[in-house]
């Protein structure tokens, strides 16, 4: 049986979602995305530079016909700003999806979950496909689901920290209760972190810095691609139970 991720009728080819920030140039961004096998690419909304019109457009390198563009509200600290950026993003005409961020603290970049919940509710009513970036809090995940989130995106660790999945038990509880897909967003540092998220049963993983800040981003993108696939396969396979003591796997019978 095929194991496809489908959200609101949209079929996703890969369970690795990738960010486009912090790369050397657009060419490297494009090569990383290619190597990662991702079909969801998240982008930020910013002012066009009106004085230097020679600057290139990211979408010249990432074809919206080939990839699913997921605009985000990165950098928004208020509900009003998040709504404003979301509406502008939608009017850009590439997607009704929005990776919703309402940041509550500059130092940790933890979400302001009260604002996030409010914005999720409003945008879902306006027909957006909302992916809120939230804490690893099972109660909030449920609240976001009830507010109309298409999927919930709990953090594994603070954005750009590379600390991995710091609270796998919370993610597990979120997964147990969730009726919408759960996508870990932020915190992944290396391939094993991505595999852990997938082995827990997450539906996908979104990352940016783990790839962009690697010594060789293209090689890391390839590693992440395999980690996400391996983690998903292991989850589907069902891991063996953990035991405290050894259990011999060779027969005693026939020994000399």
């Amino acid at each position, binding site marked *: 049986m095929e194991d496809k991720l489908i959200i609101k009728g949209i079929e996703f080819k890969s369970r690795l979602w990738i*960010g486009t920030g912090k790369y050397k140039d657009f060419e490297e961004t494009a090569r990383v995305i290619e190597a990662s096998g991702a079909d969801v690419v998240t*982008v*930020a909304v*910013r002012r*066009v530079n009106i004085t230097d019109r020679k600057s290139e*457009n990211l979408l010249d390198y990432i074809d919206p016909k080939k990839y699913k563009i997921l605009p*985000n509200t990165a950098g928004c600290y208020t509900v009003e700003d998040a709504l404003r950026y979301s509406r502008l993003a939608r*009017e850009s005409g590439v997607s009704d999806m929005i990776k919703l961020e309402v940041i509550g603290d500059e130092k940790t*970049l933890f979400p302001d979950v009260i604002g996030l919940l409010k914005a999720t509710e409003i945008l879902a009513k306006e027909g957006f496909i909302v992916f809120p970036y939230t804490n690893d809090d099972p109660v909030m995940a449920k609240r976001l689901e009830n507010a109309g989130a298409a999927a919930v995106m709990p953090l594994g660790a603070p954005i750009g920290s590379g600390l991995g999945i710091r609270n796998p038990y919370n993610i597990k509880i979120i997964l147990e209760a969730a009726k919408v897909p759960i996508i870990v967003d932020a915190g992944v540092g290396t391939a094993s972190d991505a595999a852990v998220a997938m082995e827990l049963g997450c539906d996908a993983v979104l990352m*940016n810095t783990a790839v962009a800040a690697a010594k060789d981003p293209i090689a890391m993108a390839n590693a992440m691609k395999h980690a996400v696939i391996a983690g998903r396969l292991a989850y589907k396979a069902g891991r063996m139970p953990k035991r405290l003591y050894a259990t011999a796997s060779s027969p005693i019978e026939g020994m000399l």
Partner: protein
Amino acid sequence: MRLKVNGEDRECKGKTALELLKELDIVPERVAVEVNLKVIKKTDFENYRLHDGDNVEIVYFVGGGNSYLS
């Protein structure tokens, strides 16, 4: 006409949103436009008339994953 475009005061000739984009050498398909905090639909660019003192924001997509400290 005096407009504020992306935070900068400018003297502009364009009388509509589309004319302004052309004047600034911006491809309309790739951007979203907001005038006085109201998002303008792409199909309305041609007919949306600008007025003296309007606050225009023109945005597009750039590389970015999550919020990060700049």
